[in-house]
């Protein structure tokens, strides 16, 4: 019952400061505005960490998702959940793991707090009205710590994006992400 309720809340929750949701300061200091003029249909915030092995192992999959959904109007942002991640460290990490999406260092953990993300990697899908329509795992490859499926059976983030683009409700708007717990300062 509580699960259903929290799911409903997640679906309908509109993030505070909807206007602010649209601006991301990416690595290098540039400010990227989403939804404003580029006609984006959704933004995906993926919370990452340079040291989390589970988050790191997902970069190839995230690259693939970005390649598939980018041209359809979905903007991906890789958000370092640790606010003390240095620009140099984030830049080297971007290079090492071949990250193609813009990278954000979450100063003051603004995005962590707004979205309620708790682990890395965790994905949050935001729509132009500022609503968060999905929060959770990228897929179910990790059943638990040390319990890894040979291949993912349910690709939750992909299903969520497909639904959003088709104008349908997201099938499971809230899933549990397995990964490294974000330390909230």
């Amino acid at each position, binding site marked *: 019952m509580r699960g259903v309720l929290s799911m409903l809340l997640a679906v309908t929750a509109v993030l505070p400061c909807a206007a602010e949701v649209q601006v991301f300061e990416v690595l290098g200091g540039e400010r990227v505005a989403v939804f404003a003029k580029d006609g984006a249909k959704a933004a995906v915030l993926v919370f990452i960490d340079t*040291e989390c*092995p589970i988050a790191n*192992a997902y*970069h190839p999959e995230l690259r693939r998702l970005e390649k598939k959904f980018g041209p359809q109007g979905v903007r991906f942002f890789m958000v370092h959940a640790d606010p003390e991640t240095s620009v140099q460290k984030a830049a080297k990490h971007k290079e090492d793991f071949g990250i193609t999406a813009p990278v954000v260092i979450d100063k003051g953990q603004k995005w962590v707090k707004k979205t309620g993300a708790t682990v890395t990697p965790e994905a949050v899908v935001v729509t132009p009205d500022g609503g968060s329509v999905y929060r959770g795992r990228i897929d179910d490859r990790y059943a638990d*710590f*040390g319990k890894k499926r040979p291949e993912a059976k349910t690709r939750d983030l992909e299903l969520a994006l497909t639904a959003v683009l088709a104008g349908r409700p997201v099938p499971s708007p809230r899933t549990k992400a397995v990964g490294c*717990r974000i*330390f909230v300062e």
Partner: protein
Amino acid sequence: MNQRFLGIGVLAATVVAGAAPAEVTFNEHIAPVIHGKCSSCHRPGQSGPFSLITYKEVKKKSGTIEEVLLDRYMPPWKPVNDNVHFANDRRLSEGEIEAFSAWVEAGCPEGDAAKKPEPPEYPSDWYLGEPDLVVRMQGEFTVPAEGRDIYRSFVFPVNLPEEKWVKAVELRPRAKAAMHHALFFIDSERQARKIDGRDGRAGISGMGFLRREEREGGIGGGRGLGGHVPGAVPALLPGDLAMHLPAGADVVMQTHFHPSGKEEVEHAELAFYFADKPPSKPLIPVQVPPAFGRLAGIDIPAGQADYTVRDHVVLPADVEAISIGGHAHYICKEMTMTATLPGGKEMVLLEIDDWDLDWQDRYTFAEPLKLPKGTRIETVLVYDNSAGNPENPHDPPQRIKWGRESSDEMGSVTLTVVAAKRGQSEMIERGIRRQTGARALGAVVAGIRDREKQLSFDYHDQDDDGKLSWAEVPEAHRKGIFRNFDTDSNRVIEGPEAAALGKWLEGVRKRGRR
């Protein structure tokens, strides 16, 4: 050092007394535990994915640490039996875990700066000091950024002109994030180097080349050279014990990689520490079931969650057990070895209730365990081939039989012993071989029966509906069977198709008997 043990002692005493310490702080309570049980692996240059030494490092990871401690995922330690003491036990006590939770709950206080512990010191280079010999693996292997786990074996040409006795080996991998673990085998006939690189890349694919090792019962036992497992620190064998490395032999490293998200290149170094003389008694591997279960008839129906394999041997003389470890693949879930002494007293030697292929360690007894002649050593292995097992390599589940690939199964527990009395080693080896030899003959007979059984339609029709579905036919025969008998290509052999297949199998069976 003293300070560290004092710290743990004070903490444990307070927790045992039932009262949480007034305030759990990093400097006083948490650092000694983390430095003692985590930092040997979680430090720069080692296999832990992040360093856990300073206050800030531990604070940032505190939520994750608490979660993996409560889950007992970390520190990696699979045995759950407490009746025997293992050396280098990495587990945290309940009290230590409770104190960690209390520290997180209190907001991770650092504590009195005057009580700040010295960071642990590690030899900067090799853990065991300057090695007697360092060899490098033949060829470089590129681990891709993503994909399924990779099992691959690599050859270290050692080229020693004379035999040596090995006290320890220590590995220095280059692909640190991707290398999960490695096991070392002696290849005295230098067979592996002949097939190294056959598929165009350095090394040998899969787990399949070690036939001789299977015969002789190797993994980490008397004939292997142990393994490299994250979290386990290399250690010299106790007393005058040492492992034999014949002149001219190669070492083969069976390696398990987890792609880490970025491409890495493996070109590992292996260090040897030699004894200056042969041991007074050789190490004897007592592997139950023998040959990693090859003769144990492992044949696990699709969907079965508790398939059990049992086997035993009886010790032909008094021995002292030195170490114990198991081996199995993905769907094994439980593994137990129990000694029943001649008087009937039972002693659990190893119990693993959540087997994980990723953490196959060997566990050395803190003191050698005396086991008298006539002791029955029994292994029980339980496999979960259901869809509910996330590590099942097949989706949907398929029948799994004994085999060398990671999607096949095998399983055994190896107890490494020495003879209690000098001069009895050969007799013990012979006595154990005789028992396993009799088992082998039985298995050959069972194999013939099994082949006959497999030539029957009803045997494969697991749900007794008179039809054979795609999943019911073993993968190896699927293509042939469906091409020849599934005339309407609906992936079900039914009606007249089933009759035709049944008739054909009957013919093969009759020809086989003649």
